[in-house]
């Protein structure tokens, strides 16, 4: 049920946000550690690895970045690749910005820094359930993920050799499973099946013919294009809630 504004208690919002962060902290941990380990492997110092996690704060693009640090690629090309991988965030801030009315100007600018994939998905899901987005919830979720992410870069850089074989424990594959769960959670939305099918086929085709990381932007565009050309129905806010736990 939607809460009216005066029913929102910052402390319980904060607590709820921290609780929502826990599965993400757990799921992201192997990647945070792996990033630190690989960064040092590719010639970054421990300090530079930590700086990258603290300022870029976007796992996939950090991995792409350090892969290029290891080769003799021009600096601007590394920055451009990070931009390409992260371009999807433009879509996130466009979609979420209009639901952040309760969060005033400069705080919104702060909140956008923390707008990573799971934060976006959780915020969308929370707003879909009728909860207005508050700064307390948003930062309650964001800060634990962020602080652990930085800590993991440091630990991973120091003890990189401890996870020499992440495949044995399936760690490298956890994010795919996690993202699949999120996709299923959105199945109550209009045109969900055609959008997901188009994005899937588009991303596989782009991965094959163009290569990573373009499959993300191109595949998403295919899915979004399908949503745009489908007839627009006056959506009677269907009662089926999206079942996203995050």
């Amino acid at each position, binding site marked *: 049920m939607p809460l009216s504004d005066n029913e929102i208690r910052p402390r319980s919002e904060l607590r709820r946000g921290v609780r929502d962060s826990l*599965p993400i902290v757990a*799921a992201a941990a192997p990647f945070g550690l792996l990033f630190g380990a690989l960064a040092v492997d590719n010639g*970054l110092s421990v300090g*530079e690895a930590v700086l*990258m996690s603290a300022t*870029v*704060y976007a796992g996939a693009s950090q991995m792409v*970045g350090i892969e290029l*640090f290891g080769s003799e690629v021009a*600096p601007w090309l*590394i*920055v451009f690749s990070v*931009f390409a991988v*992260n371009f999807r*965030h*433009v879509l*996130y*801030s*466009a*979609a979420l*910005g209009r639901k952040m009315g309760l969060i005033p100007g400069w705080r919104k*600018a702060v909140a956008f*820094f923390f707008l990573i*994939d799971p934060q976006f998905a959780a915020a*969308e899901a929370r707003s879909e359930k009728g909860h207005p987005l508050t700064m307390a919830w948003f930062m309650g979720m964001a800060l634990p993920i962020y602080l652990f992410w930085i800590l993991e870069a440091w630990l991973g850089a120091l003890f990189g050799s401890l996870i020499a074989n992440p*495949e*044995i424990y*399936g760690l490298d*594959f*956890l994010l*795919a*499973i*996690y*993202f*699949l*769960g*999120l*996709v*299923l959670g*959105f*199945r109550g*939305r*209009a045109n969900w099946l055609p*959008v*997901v099918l188009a*994005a*899937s086929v*588009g*991303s*596989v085709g782009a991965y094959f013919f163009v290569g990573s990381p373009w499959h993300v932007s*191109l*595949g*998403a565009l295919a*899915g*979004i294009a*399908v*949503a*745009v050309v489908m007839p627009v129905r006056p959506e009677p806010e269907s009662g089926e809630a999206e079942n*996203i736990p*995050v």
Partner: protein
Amino acid sequence: MSAVPVNIWIILASALVTYLTRCGGYLLLSRFRRIPPRVDAALNAVPAAVLATLVAPAAVFNGTAEALTLAACLVIGLRIPMMAMFAIGWALIVALRASGI
């Protein structure tokens, strides 16, 4: 300026372009007062579309163990809560890889 290694500049520039993507969509859209229905339909499709692009290639371009795991997760994920599906999927990928599939 020459005292700062080029790595630091690359990292800071990467951070800047990343932040721009994270507020850019909002800055662009806030110039419109009402959102046209088709733009609205497009924005509603964004999360599922983007997330699907992170899953589908992982199912297709890895090995049999990975494809089987995601297929199983797709089927059970329609019926049970996500964290339970996540735990089963984790166990499956470890078991299937250990079995040498």
